């Protein structure tokens, strides 16, 4: 992975204080390690799919990259600018280069602003296109995301979920970003509309050479858009590889279990399901050793898993496939 990367994230950490002693007034009892040392690169024009279940830390990664919440440690280079060290003013300017599309297209649009106002606001803040040019820009954005420009006068409550998500995408694109973080952009949508929005994101990426961090819990959705896939568990990436490799031969038992648990819409091709026992561990009581060991179905699981935390390591020289499992060379079939 030596090609120039548009996005480079190294050692990203975000800790939150847990519940506090003395009825919430004292020192925190423990730290919640929401993100605990996440690193990845994304080449220009490519998509990294970041997959995980609730509580895995994937949305915290999204929010810290945009500095919607401040990271605890780590480095994020966007086009060689060190985002985490920027002062507020240069950060505001850099926000033109990175934007986010949220999951809930209703909660992320201001209900009192028309579509036109929503799309004009970023243009005004960043002083892009003035006067009549601005209106033309709004029109162009709506057309680009497949909406009738006549909808510019509408308010969010008058739009369907799919239309709202298209407005959210148009708003993100209005400032011509290079890097787009998509945080579960289709999971609130019906399946027929989800397909439309996924196709739209793919088309926009091609047309504008956008770089995506695509966050989702649904491995099938990610497969449709991602060039590489990283799987998060308990605040860390446990597997990262080119997309085909992850789907063809997952090296981490958690990835394997996720894949087998995904419902397949074909009664004749039901997968042999690996049903994991238990829940994601509580951040208040992190397991020793490998954080996945209490739920791990790997037949060779042993004492080492309970005591020694596996680091991410290359399992396939030259193939760019890394996994954090002591038995990554002998994956579950």
């Amino acid at each position, binding site marked *: 992975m030596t090609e120039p990367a548009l996005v480079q994230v190294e050692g990203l950490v975000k800790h939150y204080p847990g519940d506090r002693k003395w009825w919430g007034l004292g020192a925190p009892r423990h730290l919640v390690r929401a993100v605990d040392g996440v690193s990845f690169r994304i080449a220009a024009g490519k998509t990294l799919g970041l997959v995980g279940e609730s509580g895995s830390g994937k949305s915290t990664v999204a929010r810290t990259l945009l500095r919607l919440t401040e990271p605890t440690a780590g480095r994020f280079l966007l086009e060689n600018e060190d985002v985490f060290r920027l002062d507020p003013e240069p950060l505001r300017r850099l926000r033109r280069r990175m934007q986010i599309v949220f999951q809930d297209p209703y909660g992320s649009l201001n209900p009192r602003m028309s579509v036109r106002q929503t799309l004009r606001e970023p243009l005004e803040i960043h002083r892009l296109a003035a006067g009549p040019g601005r209106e033309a820009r709004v029109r162009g954005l709506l057309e680009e995301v497949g909406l009738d420009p006549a909808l510019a006068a509408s308010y969010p409550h008058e739009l369907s979920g799919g239309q709202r998500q298209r407005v959210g995408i148009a708003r993100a694109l209005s400032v011509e970003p290079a890097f787009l973080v998509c945080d579960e952009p289709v999971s609130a949508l019906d399946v*027929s509309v989800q397909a439309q929005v996924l196709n739209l994101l793919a088309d926009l990426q091609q047309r504008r050479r956008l770089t995506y961090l695509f966050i989702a819990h649904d491995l099938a959705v990610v497969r449709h858009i991602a060039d590489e896939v990283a799987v998060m568990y308990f605040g860390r990436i446990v597997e990262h590889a080119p997309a085909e490799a992850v789907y063809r031969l997952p090296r981490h038992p958690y990835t394997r279990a996720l894949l087998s648990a995904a419902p397949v819409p074909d009664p004749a091709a039901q997968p042999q399901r690996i049903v994991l026992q238990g829940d994601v561990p509580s951040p208040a009581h992190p397991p020793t050793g490998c954080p996945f060991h209490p739920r791990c179905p790997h037949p060779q699981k042993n004492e080492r898993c309970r005591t020694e935390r596996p680091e991410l390591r290359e399992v396939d020289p030259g193939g760019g496939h890394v996994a954090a499992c002591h038995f990554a060379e002998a994956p579950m079939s």
Partner: protein
Amino acid sequence: MTEPVLRVRDLKTYFVTEGGGTARAVDGVSFDLYPGETLGLVGESGCGKTITSLSLLRLIPEPPGHIRPGSLIELEGRNLLTLAPRDLRAVRGNRLAMIFQEPMSSLNPVLTVGDQIAEGAIVHQGLSRRAARARAMEMLQLVGIPDPELRVDDYPHQLSGGMRQRVMIAMALVCHPQVLIADEPTTALDVTIQAQILELLDRLQRELGMAIMLITHDLGVVAGTADRVLVMYAGEVVEGASTPDLFAHPVHPYTEGLLASVPRLDRPRERLSGIPGTVPAASAWPSGCRFHPRCPHAWDRCRQEEPTLFEVGPGHTARCWLVVEPARRRGAAAP
């Protein structure tokens, strides 16, 4: 063939809208549910699947809603629509039970899970508090919650999402109902937890022999669990078939469109086809076939005449004029 445990005929649930109009949310739904089977009810938001399930338990708020005269919901030979409130209460949660999508908002936050599970056994079976508590612990064990003697005194907020859904299932099954209505029981859950809950429902169905009506938007969940499937669109059933038949030979263009919209792990990566447009509002269903504005095959007849459910094969019905005029299908015929 055995008698159906639940017979629904021409169910119509309408709502008065704010503007004084009528929303025909469920508009003439009929089906049979047989003992021990799982019937999947599939559709997107706004198609009427949740209103159908709420109607079965008569949980529709009246007003603004009402179930139209002429509808029939017959459970074990009794028409639920003519039961007195007292008799209806004796059925609900006893012979006919329901689990909901959001386990947190469907559980009472100020009662222990033990009390909530025990309530059904006290009300319907007259168990003493002590016996009901023991039954609650049995149920927790049955739904796979570890340490039931400790968990029985937990409050809902002390449990994870998956555990809460197990508690909901324990509550619903405490009286061993004949019919369980499961409305999106796994939609709010992570995929590994969803797999646990689906496996649990499958095991409980085999052990207790109940019929399950599974309402979901997820075709993958249906493919893995249901024996038969009904596809709903715009308040109507548009296709019904056995699960293998429906997935192998979908007839209605809406069913085809849904299947082509799902990202697949089991097929080569290709562009999804989706369905243009969105589900219309229940207060303004389109004329003729309600799917015609989004249908790639629609012709004049579809815009003017509403199709009925046509039989296309044994146990397979579809509400589409293509059944009558197959030559109208655009492009290559589906394989």
